[in-house]
């Protein structure tokens, strides 16, 4: 298990693929001992994915945090990441999966989430221009987090 782990979260639905694009952009640039991986499915799989890692950086598309393409940093090891209020859903979302990890005392010592504000989420759609332009800055931010860890 890598000491530092970047996990890109997303699906091929327009800007929802931003997290995947960021970890793909990290290929060949990771510091020694760090690994980048993608997560497409069940959010609770995070708990297994990050087992043994001391520092984990999640990167995912977000909504409602700012203008499209803007980057947002959340220190999830200190406090819950802000999730949409209101009704629960049938499956646990990523914010709930992180809180489940906190309840089970299974959070990595350092857990940072980088959010990229998305604009368009159409099935099979490409990244929107502001999000495509944010991939490299987001990759640099993830690298900086991995090296700081």
């Amino acid at each position: 298990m890598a000491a530092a782990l970047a996990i890109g979260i997303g699906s091929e639905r327009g800007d929802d693929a931003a997290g995947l694009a960021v970890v793909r952009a990290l290929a060949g640039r990771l510091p020694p001992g760090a690994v980048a991986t993608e997560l497409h499915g069940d959010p609770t799989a995070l708990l297994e994915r990050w087992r043994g890692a001391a520092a984990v950086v999640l990167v995912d598309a977000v909504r409602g945090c700012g203008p499209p393409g803007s980057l947002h940093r959340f220190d999830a090891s200190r406090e819950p990441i802000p999730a949409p209020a209101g009704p629960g859903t049938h499956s646990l979302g990523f914010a709930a999966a992180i809180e489940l990890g906190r309840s089970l005392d299974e959070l990595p010592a350092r857990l940072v989430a980088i959010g990229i504000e998305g604009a368009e989420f159409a099935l099979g759609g490409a990244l929107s221009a502001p999000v495509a332009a944010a991939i490299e800055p987001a990759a640099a931010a993830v690298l900086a987090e991995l090296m700081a860890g």
Partner: protein
Amino acid sequence: MAEARDPAGDGARRRTIRTDYLARVEGEGAMQVEVEDGQVTDVRLEIFEPPRFFEAFLRGRAFSEAPDITARICGICPVAYQMSSARAMEDALGVEVGGPLRDLRRLIYCGEWVESHALHVFMLHAPDFLGYEGVVDMAADHPQVVRDALEIKKTGNAIIELLGGREVHPINVRVGGFYKLPSRAALARLRERLLRARELAQEAVRWTARLEFPEFERDVEMVSLSQPGEYPIDRGRLVSNRGLDIAASEFDLHIVEEHVEHSNALHARLRERGAYLAGPPARYSLCSAELSEMATAAAAEAGLDGECRNPFRSIVVRAVEVLYALDEAVRLIDAYEPPDAPAAEVEPRAGVGHGWTEAPRGMLYHRYELDEQGTILEARIVPPTSQNQKSIEEDLLGVVREAIELPEEELQLRCEQAIRNYDPCISCATHFLDVRIERR
């Protein structure tokens, strides 16, 4: 929210209790209960999530597209949609999928039962019985239960990933069979995981049996697929405890769907007798004799006596079905002999086809009409939550009648729990819940 009022000015005592959002269900809806002078006068499950028009999307598409298009209706039970649509298309096209291909379909379906039920039992429903707001709170006090549940769920996902190509919205199912067959080595690796999950599931049944269940039973017509010699998953006739015994092609003769003003999901009822119950308690009550030895022993130890009439005990039935599905998956892998081809040959032709299978929440019916090129002319999909709406309302009526003296907050929670007994998938039915109890 509770309020006592007398809008009619006739001195009658009317009360309103309202929960704006019922969590831990899929989709958007509301519930309203009206109580006047201590008597329940009206119960309505309101589904206001907008219609999704999947049936209209399907018109003009090729028959071969139906499994992948309909799988998008639900992120929790995509396999059920793929299976019912494939079965209906095969019926229309005169194709029979048997032998190892059928066993592989049953295997991927077992995966969906495991992941869907494990999610519902432990993440969504168990917090009701233990007084937690959700699984995150529950996990702090019951960490091992939640860890085991996650392991069980993950094993279900692993089955779907192996057979379906990926764990969410699998892409490997086609009319006639599969695109690609799993390797023996991959099935052998999966089998090892299944054995571990099966042990955890045995303990999970015991754990659910120790929960406290409200005393409540309702005399209801229960319907389930039934196939001699096997617990119903992927085929069978539709039978009930009141004499129903029909083929899929007879669906419309016996079941009618009605629009009701307070719901965007159609209400289904039996033409002859009205509301009916589909899903795990019905399957168990009608077909428990077909469970595997291991599942039967676990059910008996859990105090289920071959029938489940208390909807609150459906959590135990789901746990038994998780165990069964894992046990059945092991059996299917042990018996597997690779078929010659990953799919049967399918030639388009004009026709009408019907297909139904047992989704985790109950029977899911599809009907398609095709033209000579195999283009879809008409599509019809009747999901289990739509079928159970009337039954949910009748449960609520009974629950409120029996628990009317409970403090407001407890009664409200009891109602929400009664809805979650059904693991309702409102997005499938249409189509969250905002719970209101009005006492007048």
